[in-house]
């Protein structure tokens, strides 16, 4: 008996590795018609891991003080070995994280995978989407550039539109009447501790729900495209005769991750400034408002919506109502059909909503 075999047996007796592998890898069967959109979750986990690693590396040199933050980021970009690469990966990664969470949610919605019994998966995913936006918003201020300073001023100002408590909330967020050193302290704490820990917990919940209920079946290439869940009692959604997660689907995940990484690296190395403007590299100056301050691309639709209404509160309320409706969609849309072509109302709303979002974003960019 070789020493490796003995070591394996030692662990096998104590952990039941064979059973674990069979249950979660080789014996974990997925629908035969599964497609590449199901690997979005793995890509997002990969992005989050990369964000954590680059974020920790940035923490080594970043100084979260209003008078030193900009200088420390400049030093990271220009004098620290591979500092530019680490920062660019973090900045571009944050944008990619939002993009791929959106794609994951859109594909889930399109394939009806949010329907019963996966309401909790959808809801936890929706909370994750909000947290990802929050972590991006708080991270935006940290370089203490003109762009980050004024974008945060505009973003925190919006909260002031809430009646009665609006002004209190603005000052609570900023730590004062204006964006300043206390705001940086607050956003820094939220960015590196509170939000990441909450995200870790919600990701854990999301994976736990997936593990308990099983992977959904895509409605494409099947005769029966109706929801198979009978309701009433808990039942794991298994897929007898399906393809094993290991090695088959894990190789699909690896293909998708490698493809994603190629796109990500292309942006980092060839278009590193795609998410920056001139004001991103000018130190924050509270006395000089830049001429055209626009939010990041993922907030452009919200920004434009606010401008469409005469009252900011109405704009915020409509956005809040739309987000709540989306979050609670599987509780509202309780039909059994999953194939989009057999759901004309859903398909119209899906395409219309997508066009509206893109149009508002483009309008916001050029307005």
């Amino acid at each position: 008996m070789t020493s490796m075999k003995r070591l394996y047996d030692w662990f096998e007796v104590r952990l039941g590795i064979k059973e674990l592998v069979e249950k979660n890898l080789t014996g974990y069967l997925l629908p035969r018609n599964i497609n590449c959109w199901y690997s979005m979750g793995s890509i997002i986990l990969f992005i989050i891991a990369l964000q954590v690693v680059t974020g920790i590396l940035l923490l080594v040199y970043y100084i979260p003080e209003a008078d030193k933050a900009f200088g420390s980021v400049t030093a990271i970009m220009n004098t620290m070995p591979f500092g530019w690469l680490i920062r660019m990966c973090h900045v571009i990664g944050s944008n990619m994280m939002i993009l791929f969470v959106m794609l994951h949610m859109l594909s889930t919605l399109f394939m009806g995978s949010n329907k019963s019994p996966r309401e909790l998966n959808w809801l936890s995913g929706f909370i994750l989407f909000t947290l990802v936006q929050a972590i991006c918003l708080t991270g935006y201020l940290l370089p203490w550039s003109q762009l980050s300073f004024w974008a945060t001023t505009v973003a925190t100002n919006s909260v002031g539109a809430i009646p009665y408590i609006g002004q209190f909330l603005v000052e609570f967020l900023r730590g004062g009447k204006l964006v300043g050193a206390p705001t940086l302290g607050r956003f820094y704490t939220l960015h590196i501790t509170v939000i990441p820990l909450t995200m870790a917990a919600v990701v854990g919940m999301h994976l736990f729900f997936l593990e308990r209920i099983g992977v959904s079946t895509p409605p494409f290439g099947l005769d029966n495209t109706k929801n198979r869940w009978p309701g009433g009692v808990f039942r794991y959604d298994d897929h007898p005769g399906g393809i094993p997660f290991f090695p088959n689907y894990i190789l699909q995940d690896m293909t998708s991750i490698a493809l994603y990484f190629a796109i990500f690296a292309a942006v980092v190395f060839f278009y590193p400034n795609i998410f920056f403007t001139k004001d991103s590299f000018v130190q924050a100056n509270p006395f000089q408002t830049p001429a055209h301050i626009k939010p990041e691309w993922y907030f452009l639709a919200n920004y434009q919506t606010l401008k469409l209404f005469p009252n900011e509160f109405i704009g915020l309320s409509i956005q809040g109502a739309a987000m709540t409706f989306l979050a609670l969609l599987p509780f509202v849309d309780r039909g059994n059909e999953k194939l989009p072509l057999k759901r004309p109302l859903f398909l119209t709303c899906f395409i219309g909503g997508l066009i509206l979002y893109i149009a508002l974003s483009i309008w916001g960019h050029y307005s």
Partner: protein
Amino acid sequence: MTRDRLAIIPILLATAIFNLCAAADIPVQEQIVCIRCHGAQPGRLGEPVMLWRGSIHAANGVACNDCHGGDPKDLVNAMNPDRGFLGAPKETAIPGFCGRCHVGVLKDYLRSAHGMALGKGGPTCVTCHSNHLVVKATLEIINEKNCSRCHSFERARTIKDAMRQTEGLIVSIGKEIEGFKSEGVDTEKLEKGLFSVRNRFHTLFHDVDVEKVKQESTQINADLNKLSGVLCKITEQHEKRKLAGIVVVGVALLAALIFYLLRKTYD
């Protein structure tokens, strides 16, 4: 009050609101009393305002009172000497008048042959830069039309040619630095270096000693070439990053292909 008379109230209100909104859009210097009064007058009294509107001073927010003093907010005392009103200076006082702001330029001018001829038929600031339509200080001011009013253009042409290359270098280096800055490169040292060289170069603008201008321009060009060298190194570094990018993207695509083929094998 009849109904017709009442109807005029909203019109008057709308006009007042429109005027208030329009006033809010007018630049601050346009709202001073000097411009409101002189701007409306025809001929000699209104001409300075018309000329000033096309000047570098107007573009940079420098208004009448910044040079002529007085009280720009009080129509009655706008031209009161007790409020610091100076009016138009005499010819020999012009360099001192402009030199209150352009301190370095005044020093350069007074040292030059132009400055030494002040009061003896020599040119003052307004001879080349104009008085109200103040022209930006560029090499283009040195031209045959301007110079040949007092002397031949030949010498000025030699000076201009010697300075042209330097001017071009300064502009192109400035643009390159600006480009790198907008990409996150720390350009503080480069900007300071260019600022210092540009200042040295500008002192030559009022010098009419051909040999000195040539010599100084050569020295300034050498310093500019040093700055260019630093910029070239940054460009090279960026090129290297792109080469590394090609390798990383290539490896990632290759990995994707291998994983895909492996998956197909298992399928």
